[in-house]
């Protein structure tokens, strides 16, 4: 189940990472303040329309971050949270780390988009630590984002490379945050985490019944 599998733009799947990013971008409201996590979530920026009015936050101290810097634009003083050189857009603002995380933790960001190892039916998120005994733990800003943004969107493949579900009844990996995920974008379906349970918004090249057979949890249809 590779994220680089063939992609169609017809709604069939499984989707590749760029199509998943496009789906996320489609659901971000005009003018929203958004933090895109390191890795695949950064692809979402490429799919925001020019008139989206979306303002990107980077936790190392900036609002209105622009695209990755190219050539002469590269400035070692201007990077994103992944330490990639970026650019600034008109209306940008810089601030220090405590102010940046106060903004995040105080609930001022509308949406953050994060990768994940696992998401549970309760919306628990595991994305910082594999739990392997020899792993060196490293959390960065993941726990702050998980509890801070008004809406947390996760972007991940639905199954691991060995076929294990990543949307699970209970996370087995160490948690990043409890009951914090609102929506999960995967290569096979988009899910809402609701108080009633996991609801399927749309599927790609599969059906709710097929997914229900492969996932160890009850699924609600968005329509029902």
């Amino acid at each position: 189940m590779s994220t680089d599998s063939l992609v169609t733009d017809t709604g069939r799947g499984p989707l590749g990472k760029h199509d998943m990013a496009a789906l996320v971008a489609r659901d971000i409201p005009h003018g929203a303040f958004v933090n895109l996590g390191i890795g695949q979530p950064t692809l979402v920026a490429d799919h925001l329309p020019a008139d989206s009015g979306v303002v990107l936050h980077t936790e190392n101290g900036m609002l209105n971050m622009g695209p990755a810097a190219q050539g002469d634009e590269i400035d070692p003083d201007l990077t994103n949270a992944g330490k990639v050189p970026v650019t600034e857009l008109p209306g940008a603002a810089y601030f220090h780390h405590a102010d940046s995380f106060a903004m995040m933790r105080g609930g001022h960001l509308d949406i953050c988009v994060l990768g994940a190892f696992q998401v549970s039916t309760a919306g628990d998120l595991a994305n910082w630590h594999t739990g392997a005994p020899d792993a060196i733990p490293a959390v960065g800003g993941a726990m702050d984002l998980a509890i801070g943004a008004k809406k947390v969107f996760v972007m991940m493949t639905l199954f691991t490379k060995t076929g294990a579900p990543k949307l699970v009844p209970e996370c087995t990996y160490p948690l990043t945050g409890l009951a914090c995920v609102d929506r999960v974008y995967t290569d096979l379906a988009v899910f809402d985490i609701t108080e009633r349970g996991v609801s399927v918004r749309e599927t790609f090249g599969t059906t709710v019944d097929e997914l229900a057979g492969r996932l160890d949890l009850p699924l609600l249809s968005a329509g029902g």
Partner: protein
Amino acid sequence: MSTLLCANADEAVAGIEDGSTVLVGGFGMAGMPVDLIDALIRQGATDLTVVSNNAGNGDTGLAALLAKGRVRKVVCSFPRQADSYVFDELYRTGRIELEVVPQGNLAERMRAAGAGIGAFYCPTGAGTLLAEGKETRVIDGRTYVLEYPIKGDVALIGAHRSDRMGNLVYRKTARNFGPVMATAATTVVAQVREIVDTGTIDPETVITPGIYVDRVVQEATA
């Protein structure tokens, strides 16, 4: 979401509900959002809790709002001033509640509201009347008082300049409570002297990023 540029102060304060907690910026007249307070008087919301450093001066602004009986409670550090006779009379006749908060706690409690802090231990006021009934804790030999956030439904603040995205800069000591209050309220309304095109404010000098600002209006008298 995006900052709304309002045509006038009445539009800027529209929708403030009865019973709201309203954070009002300014220290003396510096940074005081005079147009917004006047518009709030016209707007009519009542049973308000007003959080501000002072409790009004003379007959205008906050004092006029108080005089109309629209404020149930004032949370401030320094209500008693030479010309705070409107507040004084209401207070002495039991027609207004007062919570006196040390000025640093006022600022820090609003910062906590804006920063997602649930409560914090602070040394100010330990052992004094203003900490009576509050939880305390000794940390490394020093006594601290547990203080909770002050969150506003609305903040009315004054700034010097805004761009069209609501990025604000202030001027000199008129900065005071504005940047803190802007983080601590659900709806933040800024009165500014001028609105400039986005991209003309140096991003290094923005004090309140537009993410915090919901509505901006240019001063009528500017």
